[in-house]
């Protein structure tokens, strides 16, 4: 009996060790992968040795000029902030109604907002790009913003809905009793109370939009590329440039993304970055 139990705990321990080992292996390799890019971006010459021959920062200035990073970064800033702002503008009111009201056609509407988060961008990106080319918006920064709004607006809705449900509806009734119209109630009661939710939602959309490759790639023209698309083209044409210069650009991209990720993680749970697929408990009718 005790021998059996010992064998059981031994097996348990081996199993636990295996899982821990796999996890550690994964994390260590990701860390080393990032370290390798960082090392290469500062390397004078690095061919088949543990560490490069010498260190230099010239690749950063080279990459900055070669890939026109100042204009790429400016486009990225414009796209990202426009997407966040517009997504909030159309997402928050919709989230309010979906959280507070029951109406006919609510289920299909929810599905309409859930689908773009589940269908991968490249599947709907190609028909979307076709339509945007037809109305001559593709290739411009407006086309890129519109395309990025498709996953961003539903994401705001899904993040905001639980925040809105937490607010006591009596507060709204009280505001109405004192004669506030819908607009006034929105600005003076709901928006201040929703500030944490709006902050969380906009940071999540911001981080996701910086890293959104497929939709921007399919709709951007030469002068409306964001950082991640420019990085793709740099890696794609790797043969013609020094690998260090591409790595330096990758470091710039990584720095931009990670700074915003760190800011976002102060306010949100990491799991929220993965799309929220959990069905929200519906109010009991």
């Amino acid at each position: 009996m005790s021998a059996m139990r010992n064998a059981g705990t031994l097996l348990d321990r081996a199993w636990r060790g295996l899982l821990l080992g796999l996890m550690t292996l994964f994390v260590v390799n990701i860390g080393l992968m990032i370290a390798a890019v960082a090392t290469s971006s500062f390397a004078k010459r690095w061919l088949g040795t543990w560490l490069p021959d010498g260190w230099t920062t010239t690749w950063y200035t080279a990459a900055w000029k070669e890939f026109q990073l100042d204009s790429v970064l400016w486009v990225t800033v414009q796209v990202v902030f426009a997407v966040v702002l517009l997504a909030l503008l159309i997402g928050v009111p919709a989230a309010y109604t979906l959280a507070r009201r029951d109406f006919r056609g609510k289920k299909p509407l929810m599905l309409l907002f859930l689908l773009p988060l589940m269908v991968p961008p490249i599947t709907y990106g190609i028909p979307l790009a076709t339509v945007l080319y037809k109305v001559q918006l593709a290739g411009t920064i407006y086309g890129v913003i519109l395309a990025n709004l498709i996953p961003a607006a539903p994401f705001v809705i899904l993040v905001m809905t639980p925040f809105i449900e937490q607010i006591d509806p009596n507060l709204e009734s009280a505001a109405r009793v004192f004669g506030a119209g819908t607009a006034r109630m929105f600005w003076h009661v709901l928006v201040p109370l929703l500030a944490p939710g709006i902050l969380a939602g906009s940071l999540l959309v911001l981080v996701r939009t910086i890293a959104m490759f497929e939709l921007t790639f399919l709709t951007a023209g030469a002068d409306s590329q964001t950082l991640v698309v420019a990085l793709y083209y740099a890696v794609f044409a790797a043969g013609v440039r020094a690998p260090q210069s591409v790595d330096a650009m990758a470091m710039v991209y990584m720095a931009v993304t990670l700074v915003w990720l760190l800011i976002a993680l102060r306010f949100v749970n990491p799991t929220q970055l993965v799309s929220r697929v959990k069905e929200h408990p519906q109010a009991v009718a």
Partner: protein
Amino acid sequence: MATAAAPLAREPFDRALLLVIPAGTFMVLLFVYPFLYGLWLSFTPKEGGALANYTHFFTTDNLWPTIWTTLRLALPATLINVGLALPIAFKMRVKSPYQRWVTTILVVPITLGTVLIAEGMLTYFGPKGWLAQFLHFVHLYDGPIRLTHNYTGVLISLVISGFPFAFLLILSYITGIDPGLARAAATLGANPRAQFRHIYLPLLAPGLAMCFCLAFVQAFSVFPSAVLLGSPAGPTRVISIAAYEAAFEVYDYSLASAIAMIMGFVQFVIVAAVLGLRNLFYRGPMIGGKG
């Protein structure tokens, strides 16, 4: 909440409903309409009858095999990701500072995205990268190491980007299960394995099915890593590459839409199969006591 809405519902028209119109219109115009337009476009080819694009796809040697190429990458990747994520997420279900750290670290590769992972892998997993050097150094494997520009490279990149996704998703499902249920079972003498087998697994079935579907759909639409880390002309010529080429290299939007529709259809078939399978299992509340 429902009672507060009730008196408003009796009014002739609830103006709050107007608030969904901007978002709803936007989604119809930029998500539903392009999809329907693409569907229509796929049946109006440049030349030939309505089905010309589809017959072209299934009779051309560098088009129809892309379905199998993609499935051969996406299915193993999804199985690895979900299969590894489930036991590890189960081990970490208890809230602790450790859990917070691991989730934070795992969110980094997701945020960085596939393009950066591809560049990192080219540097790190390449024939002269640190990994190859290390393996040669400890004589674990002495032959040439080719982990990039082939099938393996794309599979590894799908695991790097897909495993954290599956892990975080499953973790959020597991932490949603009331630990009181497992504690009750433990009082009756169930060890962790029995708890997992008889309590967590049945309750997780819907979440796992959903996670499998999402992870699969993502892996099936692999694009940047298949180009940058694979050999896009041969063994990793996935269906999204075929669609992209048709649209932006041949400028045949009609054929490209047809390929996109086929891609969506294959994803739909697998998702429907998984969700159908899931229906064979237990359905019930995830929380004990009074629901």
